[in-house]
């Protein structure tokens, strides 16, 4: 994940030192927030999931064995937490207007006039995909995670990763094509 955290800080974190945990948080927060936001496309939900992820990381610190980097471990927790949150939310219909308002109204998002309309549309269409398809597209096509890492993070074999990714891509392309032809977005 490209983030180095000194072993001494990790040791202190494992002993429950909040200052060490704070240092880990500061180094990983943007990366973790980005991946959560890419799953959920909603600031309020992303903040809640971010909070839950780091509370869980602190509580489960004893189970971190150092087989992978701590940033990778936190990343995995974040992906799974965001995926579960997305699955829970998919029981309820998502109001697409709220998502749109969130993109446009967000303090961090760029000006809608300047932002690529196609990107706004794609973000919206991503929410029409099943969470497991969306997860594969976010991890592979946005986050550039390898198939092996995706397999580990999502706890499915590489064949299933590839199959879900292909189905997700096909579905997204189809939805995009229909929307573009309907609204004439260039």
């Amino acid at each position, binding site marked *: 994940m490209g983030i180095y955290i000194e072993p001494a800080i990790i040791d202190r974190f494992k002993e429950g030192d909040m200052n060490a945990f704070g240092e880990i948080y500061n180094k990983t927060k943007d990366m973790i*927030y980005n991946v959560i936001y890419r799953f959920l496309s909603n600031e309020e939900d992303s903040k809640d999931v971010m*909070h839950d992820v780091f*509370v869980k990381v602190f509580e489960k610190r004893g189970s971190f064995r150092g087989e992978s980097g701590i940033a990778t471990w936190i990343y995995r927790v974040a992906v799974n937490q965001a995926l579960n949150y997305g699955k829970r939310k998919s029981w309820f219909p998502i109001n697409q207007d709220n998502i749109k308002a969130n993109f446009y109204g967000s303090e*961090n998002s760029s000006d809608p006039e300047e932002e*690529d309309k196609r*990107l706004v549309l794609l973000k919206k269409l991503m929410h029409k995909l099943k969470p497991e398809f969306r997860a594969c597209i976010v991890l592979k096509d946005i986050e550039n995670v390898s198939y092996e890492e995706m397999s580990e993070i999502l706890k499915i074999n590489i064949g299933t990763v590839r199959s879900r990714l292909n189905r997700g891509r096909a579905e*997204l392309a189809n939805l995009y*094509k229909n929307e573009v032809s309907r609204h004439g977005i260039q």
Partner: protein
Amino acid sequence: MEYNEIERILKSMPNKKAPEGIWERIEGTIAAKEEKNRIFNIFTPSPRLVLAVASLLLIITVSSIGIKVHRDNIHSDVNQYLHEMAYYINSDTSWIDLGGEL
């Protein structure tokens, strides 16, 4: 449209900064959970088990007392009814004398 084009657009998604204030919430939640655990851990597992068993016994005892009182009330009502029946059967008073009609 080729999927490559969609992938290119998705990759252009800007990076975001984590909003302020989340760390304070995390610290607050962890502190609250640790305080809860501290109180819970005052009791070691054995006293916790004893407390649980004692609570269960108390619930069973109170329930049995309630059932016994209710059963005694029913017995008392039935006894009273049987006594009144015996009184009328043994008395010389006929149904007609009591105001009934044949």
